[in-house]
């Protein structure tokens, strides 16, 4: 029954970055354009701009992740902010301090932003609802719900290689039902105007809601990526590989693994993406992962620029805003 979009302040500016849902095309383009401005910084002598000097950013990771946390840390540091990394170990069997208490204790340290990664869907929303007015929250991945910065860096990568979004055909392959990355990517692609969005995988991993969202579903990989401009491979988590959802990683690779041969069904200049980390020989063969069409390493470096863009836009909401720092 609550309706207001939690992410925007009273002036319609981005205060929290929790999910792609509810944002408009202009805002997504603003993020992409701003990221372009940051993309060259890694090549300079001083790899920093003073934009967020004096701000304190806390990486609050309830789920372990070296890769994502490192890029957020680097992004914050390149904006000259002070960064604190907090890894909260929460096991499913022991109940420690409540999430709210953890938050309250941290807020006593007067920070400006939390970057949060948590195993429960909706955790970032929950935190955004319960922080002080002056604190912003960026969702670094919550359960199965969303991973908006990953989706934006994926969009940035696509924009870097392809001219416009409207005429593109994009296929997402793999475990969509358990993927927060896929959900955010689908939202972003739709908002940016991509008309042909496809999901490819076994029925056990394709949610029935996809068709209702306008995403075409395929269980055949070759047909699913035929003539597409972009192939996005998703990571198959180890615990899914054998059990009630899939019989084995071996069979998964036989049917849905991206090999050079299967890739030929896509357009000649199609790019291959993967949010990482890779399971070579499960989702993707090594020759494709390391081949000429793969832009996987670029995604990593673009990730820093995109996260810098999101942080500066969120913390730089500017004058006339009662919540401005």
């Amino acid at each position, binding site marked *: 029954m609550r309706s207001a979009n939690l992410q925007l302040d009273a002036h319609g*500016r981005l205060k929290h970055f929790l999910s792609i849902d509810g944002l408009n095309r202009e805002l997504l383009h*603003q993020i992409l*354009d*701003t990221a*372009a*401005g*940051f*993309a*060259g910084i890694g090549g*300079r*002598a*001083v790899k*920093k*701009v*003073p*934009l967020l000097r004096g701000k304190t950013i806390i990486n609050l990771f309830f789920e372990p992740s070296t890769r994502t946390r490192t890029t957020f840390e680097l992004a914050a540091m390149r904006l000259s902010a002070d960064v604190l990394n907090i890894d909260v170990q929460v096991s499913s069997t022991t109940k420690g301090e409540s999430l709210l208490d953890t938050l309250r204790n941290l807020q006593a340290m007067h920070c400006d932003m939390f970057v949060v990664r948590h195993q429960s869907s909706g955790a970032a929303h929950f935190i955004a609802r319960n922080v002080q007015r002056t604190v912003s929250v960026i969702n670094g991945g919550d359960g199965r719900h969303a991973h908006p910065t990953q989706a934006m860096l994926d969009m940035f990568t696509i924009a870097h290689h392809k001219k416009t979004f409207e005429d593109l055909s994009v296929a997402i392959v793999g475990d969509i039902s358990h993927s927060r990355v896929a959900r955010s990517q689908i939202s972003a692609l739709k908002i940016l105007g991509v008309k042909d969005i496809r999901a490819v995988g076994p029925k056990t991993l394709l949610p029935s809601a996809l068709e209702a969202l306008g995403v075409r579903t395929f269980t055949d990989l070759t047909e699913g990526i035929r003539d597409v401009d972009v192939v996005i491979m998703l990571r198959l988590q180890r615990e899914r590989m054998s059990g009630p959802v899939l019989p084995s990683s071996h069979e998964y690779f036989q049917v849905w693994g991206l090999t050079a041969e299967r890739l030929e069904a896509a357009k000649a200049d199609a790019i291959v993406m993967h949010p990482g980390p890779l399971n070579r020989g499960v989702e993707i063969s090594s020759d494709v992962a390391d081949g000429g069409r793969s832009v996987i390493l670029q995604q990593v470096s673009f990730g820093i620029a995109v996260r810098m863009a999101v942080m*500066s*836009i969120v913390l*730089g*909401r*500017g*004058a006339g805003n009662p919540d*401005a*720092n």
Partner: protein
Amino acid sequence: MSDVINVDALLARMADTLRPLVEADGNVGMIGIRTGGVWVAEQLHRALGLEQGLGALNINFYRDDFTRVGMHPQVTPSDLPFGVEDRHIILVDDVLFSGRTIRAALNELFDYGRPARVTLATLVARNGRDLPIQADVVGTHLNLTADQYIKLNGPEPLELALATRLNHPSNS
């Protein structure tokens, strides 16, 4: 402004002043500050026949009013086709007013490397400095009242326009 300033004449005079510096040192790099400074720099770059490509600085991320005005709408990112380290840089802007833009530009420039020397060339230098910054090469000096401001329109043709603001002008 009832009489129109002859921008081309100003640019020609600035180029004449800069020419000796450029000829003495074969390693000069010219950098314009977006957006108006780049327009001016393009004219000077052509007039001086510089070998190195023209650099452009977007000072958005170095502004001192970031927390007050926030992220600006899009201006193209900085682009330097040459290294800054040990080079004589000619920094070019359209209007020198409070000096804050130049302060930001210098900070950004030094994050690229340590220049040997920086020469500041500006088409117009008007009254109203907030910081102790002066230009080395000036097209014209102007004395305006507090509610007047001068703006360069371009890129083709380049024209200076004088206007009166209702509230006090902010940083230039």
